């Protein structure tokens, strides 16, 4: 009886982990044949059936770095606000956390629609609109990870700073930020990974299908790996489209996994350091 249940539990765990292996191998088996130097460096042609995904990859990178540039300071600031300036107002602090949870739970397509309405009014369908939209979307991801890092810092560090007569600003600058650097970086990379995998939020706000090269102005749309795969996926009939879709999917997956690995690696350093 006990044995049987144990075997079953193990099987479930293997299924769960096996899914990752399955997704990865599907992407590799189907996508690898598409990938060569030309595919990575050429412009896409003839509806993505020919050519490569250079500008798509570039577009994804532009969007996520834009999102990070906008979102990071806001996430960092609001995390500090929540942990350092709301210490004596636990109710306010809790409301702020609930607000971030709420933002986190919002479906991504909703960010896309509202992002179009707000940022699109200023920049039209453009990479900048997309970057702003993604920044709002990944804000709670980054923020909560940073809050966690700040709250994990022992109170004694803050008190040691205070006992030396340092103001709150000085404590943040000289103690909190250096000590929580890895925590903040973890949050940043988790947010970037989330942004890189997102399609619905940028479908209407940032992208067009073809003809995009390097954006020349704030009002230029981008093209991204995500939306490229989305279009090609609907064209599954043509084997070239399927192959290129999987090729792009493999590149995207690699990008996301690199970002995630970075986040995990930094986090492991974090634990290592606090243990030391």
């Amino acid at each position, binding site marked *: 009886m006990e044995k049987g249940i144990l075997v079953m539990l193990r099987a479930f765990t293997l299924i769960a982990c096996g899914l990752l292996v399955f997704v990865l191998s599907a992407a590799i088996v189907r996508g690898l044949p598409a990938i060569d130097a030309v595919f990575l460096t050429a412009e896409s042609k003839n509806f993505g059936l020919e050519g490569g995904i250079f500008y798509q990859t570039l577009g994804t990178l532009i969007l996520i770095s834009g999102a990070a540039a906008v979102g990071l300071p806001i996430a960092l600031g609001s995390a500090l606000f929540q942990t350092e300036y709301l210490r004596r107002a636990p109710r306010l602090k809790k409301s702020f956390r609930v607000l971030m949870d709420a933002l986190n739970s919002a479906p991504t397509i909703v960010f896309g629609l509202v992002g179009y309405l707000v940022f699109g009014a200023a920049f039209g369908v453009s990479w900048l609109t997309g970057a702003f939209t993604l920044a709002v979307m990944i804000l709670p991801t980054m923020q909560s990870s940073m809050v966690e890092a700040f709250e994990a810092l022992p109170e004694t560090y803050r008190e040691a700073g205070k006992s030396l007569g340092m103001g709150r600003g000085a404590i943040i600058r000289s103690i909190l930020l250096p000590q929580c650097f890895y925590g903040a970086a973890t949050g940043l990379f988790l947010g970037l990974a989330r942004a890189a995998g997102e399609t619905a939020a940028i479908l209407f706000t940032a992208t067009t299908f073809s003809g995009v090269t390097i954006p020349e102005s704030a009002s230029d749309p981008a093209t991204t790996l995500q939306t490229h795969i989305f279009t090609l996926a609907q064209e*599954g009939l043509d084997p070239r489209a399927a192959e290129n879709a999987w090729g792009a999917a493999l590149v995207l997956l690699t990008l996301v996994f690199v970002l995630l690995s970075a986040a995990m690696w930094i986090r492991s350093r974090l634990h290592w350091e606090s243990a030391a």
Partner: protein
Amino acid sequence: MLKPTGLLGVVLAVVFLLPPGACLAAANNKILVEGSTTVIPIVSRAAERYRSIHPKVRILTKAGGSGVGAHAAGTKRADIGMTSRELTLHEIDRYKSAKLQTHILGKDAVAPVVSSEVYQTGVRALTKKQIGDIYLGKIVNWKEVGGPDRPIVVIDKERHRGTRHVFMKYILGDAEARAPGARLVTGSNNEEQTKIAQSDSAIGMLSFAWINDQVRGLGLRDGDRVIEPNLESVRDGSFPIARNLNLVTAGPPQGEVKGFIEYLLGPEGQKIVEESGFIPLGETHR
């Protein structure tokens, strides 16, 4: 490490980046073309060639369907909207202020299409009534129209799509007719084509240019006569589900947009229309 001064700098940069960003938006030499997935192959091919002649002009295309094309041109989100149907009364009324202008690019026809498996069992043509009944859900099995004993996977398109407009206008007499028999609703031509090919018992509607050996076009039976789904029958005016492929602009085209539309309507552009599987201007009897 982000120093607080740096942090402050970034915050300020973001705040102060907005106005110049908005200014940048003004000076531009790009043309945004959005809309029908039937027209998009022509425009993208043309854009690729046009760029080799006019390297400074950037032409961006985006799919979405005829409804999106009309909406994008009507709200001036795009410089050119693509539609594979005429503007509806609702659209003309709604975008009155944009003074929409239509430029006919070429001609196309929509055929009822089926999975190759169905075609091979001998279903080669259907009457208007039969197709209508299939979409209304009155005919649900292929054997009722002389095919195999298999339920019909009826594939409909999103309601704003141009292809659906002209197809339903002919089959059910109303461009926006409901299709209670439908099993799937698809968007772009590519998506519909893929779903039909993946199935072994599907019926759908596609522009001629998407017909191939996995997705076969059906003839239209009218009494004893069968009108074959080929460009010949469109050229001679006998195929009834024909339509114009249009470009829509808000007001008369200006500058770079004008140049590109002229290119499309000129001999080079019309050659691309033909290469893409459509009928160029001035080649039909109607």
